[in-house]
């Protein structure tokens, strides 16, 4: 008898768990302000740190060091050769069409694409970012005044024609 009632108790307990979970998940999906079911402990800084499509130097540096972003240098090839963010690809805005395939390949598996230029008033980073966004690549951010900030903070750089 005891064994039988323990078996029944267990079966009912499982039933209650199933019922409650179905009720909870169903109502959570319906109620306004329900919790997202799957959410990492922290939002990635890629999603968090952006306002107006820009990214801060801290976040950009973090993404470079953790190898989670592709950097695109929107300046002229000459400036790129003289010095660029380590690993960045040279993509002057006028060469964008030709570099499209290369950018897409490089962005695969990364969390963000970060464009940069030099100086507060250089529009090239923003222009390049706009072009990339219209081609459907997500998480494109502009590092405003990127080169100056980057070198000022002694972050990793390379010289020459290669990334």
């Amino acid at each position: 008898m005891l064994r039988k009632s323990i078996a029944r108790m267990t079966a009912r307990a499982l039933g209650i768990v199933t019922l409650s979970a179905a009720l909870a998940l169903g109502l959570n999906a319906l109620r306004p302000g329900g919790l997202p079911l799957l959410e990492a402990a922290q939002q990635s800084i890629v999603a968090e740190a952006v306002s107006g499509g820009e990214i801060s130097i801290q976040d950009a540096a973090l993404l470079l060091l953790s190898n989670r972003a592709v950097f695109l240098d929107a300046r002229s090839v000459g400036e790129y050769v003289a010095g660029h963010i380590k690993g960045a690809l040279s993509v002057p805005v006028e060469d964008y069409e030709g570099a499209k395939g290369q950018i897409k390949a490089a962005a695969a598996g990364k969390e963000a694409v970060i464009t940069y230029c030099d100086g507060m008033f250089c529009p090239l980073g923003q222009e390049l970012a706009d072009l990339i966004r219209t081609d459907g690549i997500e998480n494109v951010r502009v590092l405003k005044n990127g080169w100056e900030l980057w070198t000022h903070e002694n972050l990793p750089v390379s010289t020459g024609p290669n990334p």
Partner: protein
Amino acid sequence: MSERHLLCLLRLVLGGVFIYASWDKLLHPADFAEIIRAYRILPAVLVNPAAIVLPWLELVLGVLLVANRWADGALLLADLLLVTFWSALAFNYARGLNVHCGCFSTKAVAEGDMGWYLIRDGAFVLLGLAAMFLHLRAARRSPQPDSAPAGALTA
């Protein structure tokens, strides 16, 4: 007081505790999720599902215990939950992590007094185990037909 009456009383008390405990968490799932996260026991992906499901499970358990429907299964789950919650508290107490209990309220007001939580929740654990003990004794003594669940007040 007969054992049957005592079991019935324990059932009502535990049911009431669970219903009361579920309410604030049902209303504020996001706050409850923060509290679960602060316990630093569940992996991050399980925090939100736990914050969603646990309050409903508590409410359903409480209602079943009070209404005496499937009360044996509800009692088993209630005991498992009580022991789990208490262990989680004790674990954090032992490693010096002062967590907000999140037992009855999701308001992260004053620092929780862990000692008090441990004693209070420990008492609930004892009540739950006592109820289970009485239930199993009754089940062993009398073959229970399905229509007379645990602690039924039918003589």
